[in-house]
């Protein structure tokens, strides 16, 4: 007896995950930006000390990190889509994709350094 193939023939649904991630990160980023604008309007920071104090509040630091990580993930999905659409030779596309991933990881470390360094 032949076993039925234990797989979904319509694809691995990698695209669906990316599509969903891009939208969830987009909504989270909008929420963060909205909160930050409210905070800045309420506290009206003007000097270096006031900005420093604002970004020293722990939950703002954590929310900012979540925002930036979401931004990186969002950017990766978008840039990957763009590269898949326009860059067809596999060697060039893969090189560019690796460069983007390395850049995004570097940005993330830079961000951590600014916030916690």
């Amino acid at each position: 007896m032949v076993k039925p193939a234990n797989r979904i023939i319509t694809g691995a649904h990698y695209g669906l995950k990316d599509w969903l991630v891009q939208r969830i990160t987009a909504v989270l980023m909008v929420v963060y930006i909205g909160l930050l604008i409210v905070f800045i309007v309420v506290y009206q920071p003007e000097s270096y000390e006031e900005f420093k104090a604002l970004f020293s509040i722990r939950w703002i630091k954590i929310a900012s990190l979540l925002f930036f990580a979401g931004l990186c993930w969002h950017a990766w999905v978008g840039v990957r889509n763009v590269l898949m659409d326009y860059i067809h030779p596999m060697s060039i596309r893969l090189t560019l994709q690796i460069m983007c991933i390395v850049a995004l990881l570097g940005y993330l470390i830079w961000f951590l350094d600014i916030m916690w360094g």
Partner: protein
Amino acid sequence: MEAQYPARRRPKYLNLLKIREPLPAVVSILHRISGVLLFFPGIPLFLYGLQLLLQSPETFASLQSGLAHPLCKLFLLLATWFFLHHLFAGIRHLMLDLHYGLQLEHARLSSKLVLIFGAALTMLAGVWLW
């Protein structure tokens, strides 16, 4: 067998410089271009600005004087427009995903709104900057 067309010459290929894009297509390609530009040079410039803002009172002062330069303001305004267009076109995308505004006339109206809101808020930001 090829179909015989009357005297009217039909284009043999899509020349992006010759065809007139419908409004939703303009919004869509601007969404993509603004996204790429926000990724680069957007993110590194944003991080550089954040670093200047938070590192020390001296870097904070240099950020302030740098942003006071008219060219810098113009650049910031352009970046604001890219960001706002990307934001509004993205919201439109989410609405389309939820099956709002799928009819042609609604899609045209919403793309018009995206362009108008992006430009209007950018101008407001410009007024605030100067």
